[in-house]
C-alpha cells in the first residue's frame, strides 16, 4: 500500500511538473536552442556588425531582425545577370520578390513575437504566411523546410524564442518590387 501511495504521488508530481501552465520547461527550451542553432536562424535574424576581427553577429541584438536604426535605400539590382542584393548586416534582402527584412523574433510585445501564441507561430511556419493566414513569408526564409518539423520541435523553438532577451526593434515592412508585375487592375483585363 505504501509503495502504491509513493507511486501515485510521484506520478502526480511528474504530471504537475509537465503540465504546469506558464512555467518554461528547461529541457524544451534547450531543445529549441539546439534547433534554432542548427537551423541557422541567427544567420539572417541576428544582424552582423564589424569588429576588428571581421564581421560577427551582434549578440546585443540577437534574433531581433533588421535594425530599425538602419534605413535601407533601394537595392542596386541593375547588373544582369546578378539579381540579388544583401545588406551588410545580412538582414535585408532584395530580389525579384522585392525587398525583405528579417523579422524580430525576440519576445518584445510591441515589435517582436511577444504577443504571438504558440499556435500563431506554428501556423506561420506550416503555411508560410504571416500568422498562418496573412502575407506570404518572403525569401530567403526557408519556411518550407521548417514546415516539415514536428509540432514538438516547433513548440520547442517557440519556447526558446520566448526565453531570450526582448529587444525593441521595429523591423520595416517588406517592399514590393520596383515594377511589380502583379499590380494589374481589373480594368486591364
Amino acid at each position, binding site marked *: 500500500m505504501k509503495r502504491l501511495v509513493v507511486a501515485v504521488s510521484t506520478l502526480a508530481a511528474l504530471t504537475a511538473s509537465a503540465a504546469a501552465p506558464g512555467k518554461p520547461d528547461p529541457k524544451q527550451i534547450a531543445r529549441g536552442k539546439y534547433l534554432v542553432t542548427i537551423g541557422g536562424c541567427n*544567420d539572417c535574424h541576428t544582424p552582423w556588425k564589424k569588429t576588428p576581427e571581421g564581421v560577427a553577429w551582434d549578440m546585443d541584438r540577437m534574433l531581433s531582425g533588421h535594425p530599425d536604426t538602419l534605413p535601407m535605400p533601394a537595392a542596386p539590382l541593375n547588373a544582369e545577370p546578378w539579381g*540579388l542584393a544583401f545588406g551588410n548586416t545580412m538582414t535585408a534582402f532584395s530580389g525579384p520578390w522585392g525587398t525583405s527584412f528579417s523579422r524580430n523574433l525576440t519576445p518584445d510585445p510591441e515589435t517582436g513575437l511577444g504577443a504571438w501564441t504558440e499556435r500563431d507561430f506554428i501556423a506561420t511556419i506550416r503555411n508560410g504566411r504571416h*500568422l498562418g493566414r496573412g*502575407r506570404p513569408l518572403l525569401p530567403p526564409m526557408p519556411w518550407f523546410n521548417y514546415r516539415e518539423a514536428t509540432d514538438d520541435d516547433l513548440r520547442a523553438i517557440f519556447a526558446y524564442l520566448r526565453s531570450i532577451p526582448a529587444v525593441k526593434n521595429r523591423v520595416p515592412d517588406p*517592399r514590393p518590387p520596383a515594377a511589380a508585375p*502583379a499590380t494589374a487592375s481589373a480594368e486591364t483585363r
Partner: protein
Amino acid sequence: MLALLVLVGARPAPGKPQREAPPRLADTGLYVDPGARTLTPGIRTWTPQYPLWTDGATKRRWILLPPGRSVDASDPDAWIFPVGTRLWKEFSFDGRRVETRYMERGADGSWLYATYRWTADGSEAVLAPATGVPAAVRLAGGSAHDLPSTGDCEACHAAGRTPVLGFSALQLSPDRDPLAPHREEPSADAVDLVSAVRTAMVRRLPRALLEKPPRIEASSDLARAALGYLHGNCSSCHDLRGELASVGLDLVQRVVPREGTGPGSTAVAVPSRWQPAGAPEPLLRITPRQPERSALLHRLSSRAPADQMPPIGTHLVDDSAVQLVRSWIATLESSTRVSAPLVER
C-alpha cells in the same frame, strides 16, 4: 541558412496531410449522372448577397446535407454544420469551367478541403495537388488564376468560428443589398434564409431573424454596401472571435450585436501597424474623410504580394470595390457611427 533559389510562388508539399479526397469530382457525390451533369437529388444552390471577389470569376455553389440532418443556427453568427455536410463551388472564367472546390465534414468533425481541376475539353474534373497549382489558367490581360493549396483553403476557412463561408444568416437574407459589388441574382430554385428554415435545412434560428431578416444597419446605402463587401471578402480572417483576434481588426457584420466589435471600433481612427514605405506620416486603418491616409484602402488597392488584401485568391484589384470603399471613407466623419450593430429582433 539561406535559400537563395527560392522565389515567391514556389509552394512545396504541406507538412500535415489531411484525409484523402476522392480522385475525381464525379466521386464526391455532386452528380447523380456525371455525364449529363445531373445533380444529386437533395442538393441545393444558393447565392450569397456579398460574394467574394475572385478576379471576375463566375461562380456556382451547391450544398448537400445528410438525409434528415440540419444546420444548427442557435448561434446565428456561427452555424454548426452536421457531419456529412458537403459543399461545392465552381469557378469559371470567360464561360469556361476552371475548378470546383469541395468541402466535406468528416465523421470526426474535421473538414476536408480539395479542389478539382477541369480538363481542357471540360469533360471531367480531377483532384488537383494538395500543394495547389500556381497560374493554372492564364486570363485575358496577362493575369492568371491559381488553384489553391489545402493550406490556402484552411487559411480562410479555418480562421473563424465556422468553416463554411457565404452560407450564413446575413448572406442568405432575402433583404438583399442592391449596391453589393458583383451582386448576383439568385436563381428561382436557390435557397435563402426563409426557405432554408421552412425546409428544415436550418433549425433553431432565432425567430426574430425570420420576422425581420438580417440587414446591415448603416448610416447610408453606400456604407451598407461597403461594410457588406468587407464582411464578404475580409471577415473570415478579420474576426475578433477568430484565429487572428490578436490583430485586433474586426470586419464582421454580426446579426447578434457585440459591444466593441466591427469596423467602427477596430478600424476607424485606429493606428495601423502596416505602413507603406516612404509614407510621410503614419496611416490609420481608416482615416475618416481621407481615403488616401487609410491603410485598409491601400492594401485593398494593392496586388504586391506582401501588401495585398486579401492575401490569397486574387491577382487583380477589384476596382469597383476600391471605388466603393474610397467613397465610403470620404463620407465618414470622425464621430460617425459606422455601423449600428444588427439587432436580434
